[in-house]
């Protein structure tokens, strides 16, 4: 049964990959841009899914790392440094800052941690908004170029899309490998029962710090790609509100499900962008989204990707109660 699931999953992934490869042929320029926008967020949300979905940490400051990645690239490129140095720099800086943010996580629990990360986001955002000498303040940094690889320019939406797609696949592959390794189990143990985990020899301290650091690094990479995608960076997309939206994207897609971010980013980012020009609908997207989140918590608290598991569980429960009923009937007949 598992092999069949595996084969289905593999076939699905290949089909999706093929679709993503040919999609630009059928879309206009803006559509290709939107796909890139979506993929950038998929990378960022994958990182948050690791931190909160797999490792169970409460992180409401993810947009800060997204922003740090974007500003790192923007500032470095303005200073004449290549994007190809800016991208790894963004990842490394965010990894280091993620470790720093992980330290409060060792001291405080659950909701207090959530507020601490929220506060961290506020602090970072305030720096972005106020320190004009560094970040351009509310005016931001504009005219961020798109890089060239091996002499081939990625200036156009379509080449840049393929670049972003390649990075997304690499990041996804790395995450897949990490989660399949013993680290994946260790993260889940940290999430489900940190006290037991510690008594079994799992170093919850290190895994907590790393869950923040790796998640942040992913956001940093996404931010770097974001900078060259939108080519104008200002503090707006990196607020606490943005972090909260990112957290909701993890939850809506399905926390702890590998493909959750794909769905979550689609709902959180693509859908509203798509509907931006639809008259009358655009303003109501967020209220409807908010209300849907409330409803989803009541009916589907584990997110959209938990639907197959739920159906399976319901079928198993039905079978079990049918078995019990049959047993009871047999006992009655025998007595």
């Amino acid at each position, binding site marked *: 049964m598992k092999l069949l699931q595996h084969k289905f999953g593999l076939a699905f992934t290949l089909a999706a990959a093929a679709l993503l490869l040919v999609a630009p042929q059928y879309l206009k320029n803006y559509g290709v841009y939107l796909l890139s926008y979506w993929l950038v967020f998929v990378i960022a949300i994958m990182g948050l899914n690791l931190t909160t979905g797999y490792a169970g940490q409460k992180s409401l400051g993810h947009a800060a790392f997204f922003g740090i990645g974007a500003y790192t690239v923007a500032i470095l490129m303005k200073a004449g440094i290549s994007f190809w140095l800016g991208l790894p720099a963004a990842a490394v800086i965010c990894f280091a800052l993620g470790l720093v943010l992980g330290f*409060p996580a060792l*001291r*405080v629990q*659950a*909701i*207090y941690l*959530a*507020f*601490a990360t*929220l*506060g961290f986001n*506020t*602090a970072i955002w*305030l720096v972005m*908004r*106020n320190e004009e000498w560094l970040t351009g303040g509310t005016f931001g940094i504009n005219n961020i170029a798109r890089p060239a690889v091996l002499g081939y320019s990625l200036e156009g939406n379509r080449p840049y899309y393929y670049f972003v797609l390649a990075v997304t696949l690499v990041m996804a592959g790395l995450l897949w490998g990490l989660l399949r390794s013993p680290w994946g189990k260790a993260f889940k143990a940290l999430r489900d029962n940190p*006290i037991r985990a510690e008594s079994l020899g799992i170093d919850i301290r290190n895994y907590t710090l790393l869950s923040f650091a790796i998640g942040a690094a992913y956001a940093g990479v996404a931010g770097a790609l974001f900078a060259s995608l939108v080519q104008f960076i200002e503090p707006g997309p990196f607020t*606490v*509100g943005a972090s*909260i939206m990112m*957290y*909701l994207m993890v*939850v809506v897609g399905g926390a702890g499900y590998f493909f959750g971010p794909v769905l979550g980013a689609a709902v959180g980012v693509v859908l509203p962008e798509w509907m931006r020009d639809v008259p009358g609908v655009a*303003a*109501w997207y*967020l*209220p*409807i*989204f*908010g*209300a*849907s*989140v*409330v409803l*989803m*918590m*009541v009916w589907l*608290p584990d997110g959209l990707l938990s639907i197959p598991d739920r159906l399976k569980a319901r079928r198993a429960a039905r079978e079990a109660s049918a078995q019990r009923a049959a047993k009871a009937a047999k006992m009655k007949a025998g007595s």
Partner: protein
Amino acid sequence: MTDFIQLFLSGLATGSIYALAALGFTLLWQASGTINFAQGEFVMLPAFMMLGFLSLGAPMLVSVVCTVLLAVLLLGWVFKRGVVDPLFKYGMMPIVVATIGLSIAMRNGVRAGYSAEAHPFPSLFADKLYNIAGVTVTLQDMGTFALAMVIVMATQAFLAKTVTGRAMQAVAQNTESASVLGINVPRMIFYTFAINAVLAVAAAMLVTPTYLAKFDMGEGLGTKAFFAAIIGGFNNSRGALLGGLIVGVCENLAAAYISPAYKDAVALVIFMVVILFKPQGLLGKKEERKV
């Protein structure tokens, strides 16, 4: 020196508004384990309810009463029955996420459905200034502080001195024992939600005149209420008062003496310091982690 006192006093006024929101937040947490991420929007909505009633021609007092009733209905009863009760069995996080969704829905619902503009709001106090011993204070500030303090004290007196209030405290401390004693637990929890709604209306009446009614007025307020509640001590309702006042005063002083641009970081910094050195809050009691 007079500057300092003026800043201190107006900080007390703002702080007392934070205290109202923080108190409601703390009570909800104590009574039902609910973390209400939409607390800021719970203050925003009554502000717009008031505007609605006033625009229908109702006089001030009638509007206030109607707002309180409507708030208790929506933010108390509907919120409890519709959101908290169904999610209670799943634990804390689903409720947190649901209230996050609720805050987004409320904020943007008002923006889309009513107005994205800032609207003026009538004050309960006349526009007067007083000069006492060289220090200038507005009637608004003094009245805000006094009224908020009265409401906070009244709430705490209600909880400590009345039969219903003590029953509510019993529910907050040990729900199972309380129900065994014959206390109607769901009703006591509802009363907590109702009180939160009333506190939110009070906060709205006091804060909106100065900052105007706008769909996003709840954002900063909600966050500061959380920080204030935690700074004061999450398991102690007196903590909400202390936390709110501390945040209000420090914010004002920091804005004047350090930097106005980083005013919003003040609550955060105090929060981080408290969390790291006294996580149970200034007035809170240490909670043992049970294995």
